[in-house]
């Protein structure tokens, strides 16, 4: 205990200030929690993410942001050191706040395109992982993709190799900050890079003052580099489509390829083969394949003139892998699916061949009208 009353008072004053500051912060946090709870309770159970998907989605987001962040930090720091700005370089590499936390707090990650893409990716991974592995009839015969390496068409071989590489990359679940590739569509990758550069800049600026133009220019240059170095054609989705196009199978071959790709748990190839056959984009076909309701998928399978047994196999395999699906409901409609004329099925899917943006705009307008109707009805 100190005899010096002055010191004790100063300590007490400081303590009071800290306490008051923390009390203010607590008030803000309580409000945040309340609004979080309001947002949470308002979500309809039918559209709520399950816990596993939410966790995985957050992990993938953190992993992507971490990878971009590591690349930006190290490249910009190298540039700063070259420009005799070692102090700034150290501040950049030492700033502790992860970009992900800052981006999340800023609300930039509430981007429907980004989250939509990642959610679909997480769902695809989950279903692919849960697909039942099926032993081949001949254990000495290599599985589908290794066999395709030796295909007469060299483009098929190269695309099969690229698909195995892309799937290995996607499934390795590398630790945060170690994966240099986001595997995102180019436009989303560009957004993420610029956002991350801005978030890094803010983090350094928070840690002190001084002229930061050198930092701005280094970060912008690092971001440009990261964007230029990104090869969109290496994305898993692009590679799978390339392989499907190179294979360009006839109806019989497509049936065989679909069944075997499913047994090998190569869901990306299944999606690409269906998309290629129907002239759709991978993203659209993925949405159709992953939709637990399955109605559009049944139409798509029928539009490709697949036989009853193949449709049943595909439906069964997906139902066994995805607990949200209902085998009995599928069995109920199977005969109707098979009875559907293949031209009719094709026509039903035709709107999917319209421009993506146009379809998105149509949906947005429709959704807006639907949401505004009840209140309009009340006031009227």
């Amino acid at each position: 205990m100190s005899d010096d009353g002055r010191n004790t008072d100063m300590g007490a004053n400081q303590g009071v200030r800290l306490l008051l500051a923390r009390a203010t912060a607590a008030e803000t946090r309580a409000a945040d929690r309340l609004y979080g709870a309001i947002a949470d309770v308002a979500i309809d159970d039918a559209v709520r993410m399950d816990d596993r998907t939410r966790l995985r989605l957050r992990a993938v987001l953190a992993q992507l942001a971490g990878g971009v962040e590591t690349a930006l930090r190290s490249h910009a720091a190298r540039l700063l050191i070259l420009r005799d700005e070692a102090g700034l370089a150290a501040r950049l590499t030492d700033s502790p706040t992860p970009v992900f936390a800052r981006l999340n707090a800023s609300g930039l990650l509430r981007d429907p395109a980004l989250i939509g893409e990642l959610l679909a990716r997480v769902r695809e991974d989950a279903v692919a992982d849960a697909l039942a592995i099926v032993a081949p009839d001949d254990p000495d015969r290599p599985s589908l993709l290794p066999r395709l390496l030796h295909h007469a068409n060299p483009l098929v071989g190269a695309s099969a190799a690229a698909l195995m590489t892309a799937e290995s990359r996607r499934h390795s679940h590398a630790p945060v900050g170690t994966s240099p590739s986001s595997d995102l569509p180019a436009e989303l990758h560009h957004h993420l890079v610029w956002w991350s550069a801005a978030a890094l800049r803010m983090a350094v600026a928070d840690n002190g003052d001084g002229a930061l133009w050198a930092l701005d220019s280094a970060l912008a240059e690092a971001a440009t580099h990261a964007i230029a170095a990104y090869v969109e054609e290496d994305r898993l989705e692009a590679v799978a489509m390339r392989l499907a196009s190179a294979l360009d199978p006839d109806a019989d071959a497509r049936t065989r390829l679909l069944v075997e790709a499913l047994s090998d748990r190569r869901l990306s190839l299944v999606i690409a083969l269906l998309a290629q056959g129907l002239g759709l984009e991978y993203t659209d076909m993925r949405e159709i394949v992953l939709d637990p309701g399955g109605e559009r998928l049944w139409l798509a399978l029928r539009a490709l003139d697949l036989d009853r047994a193949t449709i049943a196999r595909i439906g069964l395999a997906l139902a066994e892998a995805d607990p949200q699906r209902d085998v009995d409901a599928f069995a109920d409609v199977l005969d109707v699916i098979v009875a559907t004329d293949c031209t009719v099925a094709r026509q039903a899917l035709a709107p999917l061949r319209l421009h993506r943006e146009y379809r998105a705009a149509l949906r947005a307008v429709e959704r807006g009208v639907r949401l505004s109707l009840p209140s309009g009805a009340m006031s009227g």
Partner: protein
Amino acid sequence: MSLDDPELPTTVRATLDSAGRLVAADPRLLALNARAGGMIGAPLAVPALARTVRHALRLRVPVSRTVIVAEGGEDLDLWVRAEPMADPERGGVDLLLVGWKARDVWQPAVLRGNYHHRFRHSAAQWVWETDSALSLTRLSERATVSPDFDGTACLGHPLTRLFALAEDDVRAFPILSGLALRQPFDRQPATVRQTGQMVLLSARPLTDKHGAFCGFAGAACRTDAANRANTNLPSLVSSDLDAFTSNIAERLDRTLRMPLDRIIATAETIQAQADGPLRQDYADYAADIVNAGRHLVGLVDDLVDLQTIELPGFTILPQPVDLAEIARRAAGLLRMRASTARVQIDAPAFEHVLPTTGNARRALQIVVNLVANAVRYSPLDGMIWVRAEREGAVGAIIVGDQGKGIALADQARIFNKFERVDPREAGGSGLGLYIARRLARAMGGDVTVDSAPGQGARFVFTLPFDARDMT
């Protein structure tokens, strides 16, 4: 008769008509179905089987799944395959049931046997997968982007294009026995062809629902680079193995401690119901999680200690240590646990002093271990005596309990690695006494036991007496 009887056939067949009614079945299924209230001519009464048959009938494709079927007090694991008959006139389903074994009571992964694989994967430089023809189908990202190694070119090709396999130290190829028996294999020495890097491969077989082999899912661990540079002889493999095992504790510490700390902290929060009220049994489950987590952290601590004391030339710098004080502190640390177990600890009196040389922290670690053992094996309302005495040139702590004692034959065994005083008893890593003795010997002392069954155990921990301190 138990359905789990090993004498009974584990492949069972049945036939059902197009309406899913049972036409014929092997006796084992008949019995199971009858106990569930079913009979010939009626649909199967076991819900999971009936569902599988219904799906095969409606989809008209083979349906195979793993199902769990309740039978008496047991749950059975079954592989079921329902195959629509080829002859459309008959239109029924052939049912095949394989496996037929009682579902295991839940066990921690460490006892289930796949623990080693998880552990290896945590340390692996990369993980890989093959198909049944041993063509490489997956490689982890680290193997595809490392600057000195691009595994991409090997994807789709035989595993042996990536790795040149070598004999292990008993001149065998573990991968071959793994392949022949469709079993996990471990420590298969190999060289990465592209880089000359020595690695050890381990893998488990991938099987489909019927147990048919679909390939291997494995890991490759780089062996110590320094050893590789020094020598190129066949003996290299075993020296690499030493380097490999000596890192185990470090890796355990790195890979396990943080997640465990987080598990314990979170479970403690749940147990304390800090975020709001909770049903009591859930709070109690959280307490179980905390206990299991602490046990695992203790195990990690032990293994890290183990690695330290097994380093060549491990010694402890001698300093003055008051063993009587150590005994009092150990007793104080464990008093709470003892009172929970309704055991009393009788520690040396406050004025008692016993000067020795050693390291106070390590000495405390040893005595805590001995007293904790005594608490664990003491009967209810038992007493533990902790005495500090001089015995000639050594100072000794004697820990005596009223437990069931240790048979003469076991007295040497319990100081070995991974041995326990009572192997049937849960808890403990089996490293405590081994570490205690190694530490004591490194300080110039020892840990010994004398005991007879039924008369309690008496552990004696000695350190060199410090005659200088007699003044």
